[in-house]
């Protein structure tokens, strides 16, 4: 990629980011925690060691083997990490990063601006960038200014939150290990890989040269892969595990009642009733809008997620800058209002029932909430059948839009609002469900406005408000509730958790109460 030097601000001042990190889900002071071996129960093995494959299957390892340029505190404040400071140009067309000078990869190689550039190159490659690639879409190129300084140039002015999201999203891989990173981790994180027995366990040992002083607290971590949630639960209860990561909400709820600690991170997913507006009665806007009222969100949250989460009517986590709790109240379950809109739709009873709700048969919460919706709709006169699918058939239906309606979780909803467009139903271009041209131009305009409104003043809020209004009116996705795919349940003597904005598992501060 051709590098271009930008005439941008030379000032590096000390945008001191380092106001103490609010790292902290933990009320337990660090001095009251001692190390040891942490035994973590997980329900599925990892896919690979590539941190740019930011999918949840790798969430137990990414933040333990790798570090990012920036981090967010649970309430969305910026926390310095590999970049000790950054400066956004006054025209918002570039950002300049100053890297820490005391960071070494596990191989012993130092962190440099060239290493960051190598990672940016990987992230910008459509074949290698994986989940980070779409986030790089607004980056034009980058420049290595000096051994510890790198500048990213954008295609146009970029909102601050979009820039910091990108810096938080990129984990830095040792350049020497980029080619083999899927098979062999190459990070600078608090832990290093010691052993992996595929399908059984992964053992990590502490990085002796870690740059965060006094961390990691525990010298060893052993992940054991349990095939069943009940087995993981039994391991915790019998003292065979200290932590369960990414177990089910039902088990977490039961364990919490039994006195175990349950931690819900700030980066949940939002469950969305996805509607294919190109099919059947869903072409009718009033009919779709009725679903804003016809879904018993409280019931869905209880039945599917044991009440662990929040009821929402917009696809945002509570930590999202676009989150607006008033919508959940305005669009609370209301059968009468829903029926009014159904009547306004002009559709006959037969037309309103002429569709199927596709259900992920392997996902018990989704099977449960789909039945809740089916039952509720029946009260409104809509008699809908469930169409259970699994495996390739389900993926095909979801990704090719071969459904009338389906429940599916969406992520990236705790950061810059337009990141929601990384989810298929919310895509603005090449939308696999709604097709091209996108049938909801107001939504496209609202996303564009969010992307081009700079600063942090009222104009930004107005852009978010407009997007929220359009989302509810166009009603191609009806959010119901947040839920944490990365629930953490711990034994009573485990403490010191750092909650990650993406609900990844971070263990460097975790230990045992003295």
């Amino acid at each position: 990629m051709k590098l271009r030097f930008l005439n941008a601000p030379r000032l590096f001042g000390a945008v001191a980011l380092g106001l103490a990190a609010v790292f902290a889900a933990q009320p337990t002071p660090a001095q009251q925690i001692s190390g040891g071996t942490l035994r973590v129960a997980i329900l599925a093995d990892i896919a690979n060691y590539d941190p740019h494959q930011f999918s949840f299957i790798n969430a137990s390892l990414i933040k333990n083997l790798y570090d990012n340029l920036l981090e967010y505190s649970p309430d969305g404040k910026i926390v310095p990490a590999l970049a000790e400071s950054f400066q956004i140009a006054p025209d918002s067309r570039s950002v300049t990063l100053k890297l820490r000078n005391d960071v070494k990869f596990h191989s012993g190689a130092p962190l440099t601006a060239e290493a960051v550039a190598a990672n940016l190159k990987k992230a910008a490659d459509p074949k290698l960038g994986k989940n980070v690639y779409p986030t790089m879409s607004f980056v034009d190129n980058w420049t290595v200014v000096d051994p510890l300084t790198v500048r990213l140039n954008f295609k146009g002015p970029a909102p601050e939150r979009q820039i910091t999201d990108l810096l938080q999203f990129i984990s830095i891989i040792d350049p020497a290990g980029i080619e083999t990173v899927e098979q062999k981790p190459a990070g600078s994180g608090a832990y290093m890989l010691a052993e992996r027995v595929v399908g059984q366990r992964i053992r990590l040992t502490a990085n002796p040269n870690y740059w965060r002083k006094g961390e990691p607290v525990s010298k060893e971590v052993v992940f054991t892969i349990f095939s069943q949630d009940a087995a993981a639960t039994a391991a915790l209860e019998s003292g065979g595990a200290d932590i369960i990561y990414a177990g089910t909400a039902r088990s977490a709820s039961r364990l919490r009642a039994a006195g175990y600690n349950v931690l819900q991170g700030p980066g949940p997913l939002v469950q969305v009733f996805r509607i294919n507006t190109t099919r059947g009665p869903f072409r009718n806007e009033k009919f779709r809008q009725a679903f804003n009222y016809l879904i018993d969100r409280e019931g869905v949250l209880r039945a599917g997620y044991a009440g662990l989460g929040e009821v929402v009517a917009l696809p945002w986590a509570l930590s999202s800058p676009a989150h607006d709790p008033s919508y959940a109240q305005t669009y609370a379950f209301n059968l009468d209002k829903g029926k009014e809109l159904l009547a306004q739709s002009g559709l006959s009873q037969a037309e309103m029932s002429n569709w199927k709700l596709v259900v992920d048969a392997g996902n018990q919460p989704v099977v449960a909430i789909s039945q809740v919706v089916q039952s509720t709709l029946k009260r409104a006169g809509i008699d809908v059948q469930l169409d259970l699918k699994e495996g390739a058939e389900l993926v095909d239906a979801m990704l090719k839009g071969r459904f009338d309606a389906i429940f599916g979780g969406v992520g990236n909803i705790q950061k810059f609002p337009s990141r929601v467009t990384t989810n298929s139903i919310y895509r603005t271009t090449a939308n696999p469900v709604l097709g091209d041209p996108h049938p909801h131009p107001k939504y496209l305009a609202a996303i564009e406005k969010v992307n081009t409104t700079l600063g942090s003043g009222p104009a930004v809020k107005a852009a978010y408000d407009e997007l929220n209004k359009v989302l509810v009116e166009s009603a191609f996705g009806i959010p119901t509730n947040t839920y944490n795919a990365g629930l953490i349940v711990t034994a009573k003597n485990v403490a010191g958790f750092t909650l990650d904005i993406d609900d990844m598992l971070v263990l460097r501060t975790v230990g045992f109460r003295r």
Partner: protein
Amino acid sequence: MSALGSAAEIGKRIVVRKTAALSLAYLVAVALAAAFATTVGFDPLSQNLARMLEGPSRDYLFGTDELGRDILARVVYGARTSLITAAGAVTLAASVGVPMGLVAGFFGGWRDAVLMRIVDLKLALPSILLALALIAVLGRSQVAALTAVGLTGVPTFARVARAQVLSLRRRDFVTAVEAFGASSPYLMFRTILPNSWSPILTQMVVLSSVAILLEASLAFLGVGIPPPTPSWGEMLRTGKEYLYESPTYAILPGLMLTLTILSFDTLGRALSAVLEGREDAPVRRGAGPA
């Protein structure tokens, strides 16, 4: 003796056996409960999200499931699903398998070879695998489950019918009818079949238990009748996720499934013994296999 009289006589000879009588009584009770569940007021679909996964209470004798539905009502309606699937599957299997066996045994030669190789092929495939493949093609529904379970039973009926034809084909009464110029279909369906019904009937009873088990297995694997229709296998599948919160959720359908299969099996064995005239007296302990 008339057919009715004959059936009554067989019934009498079965019910003198304690285990068979108990099994029959149980099955009749289950069938009646399933048939009149609506009249009694059971509602297996009504959700009460404020009372999910509750234990037994006055309102819900066997507690509630993960959507606050009455487990007892769902178990009773699950019986309807199981019995309808079993009856349909057995009927289908007999309707296809018996004519196959009759034709193979009656004509012999290449027809026998071709039909029996088809039967062999089906027997070589595990029933559950065949059923899974059929459901993958037909989709999930009660008809699909019934068809899948029924087709897996075809080889059994084909073999039984063929064996009967082979043993009766050269008997005098068949030869006599043939000598009067009876056609092949007449010989097969009007002469041989009426004299072959006892082993076929026994197979129908025995296969009912297999059909119920297979339907439950498919539901347990997640490819049975789609929710919210209650089915014992589906209740077992979901109930095992909630064993801590609501043990009755999985135990009750499991118990019903076990008892129903056991009852059909016991009844089938008793029927077989009676029809084959092996034993007329009740089976006593130590008296050897029935």
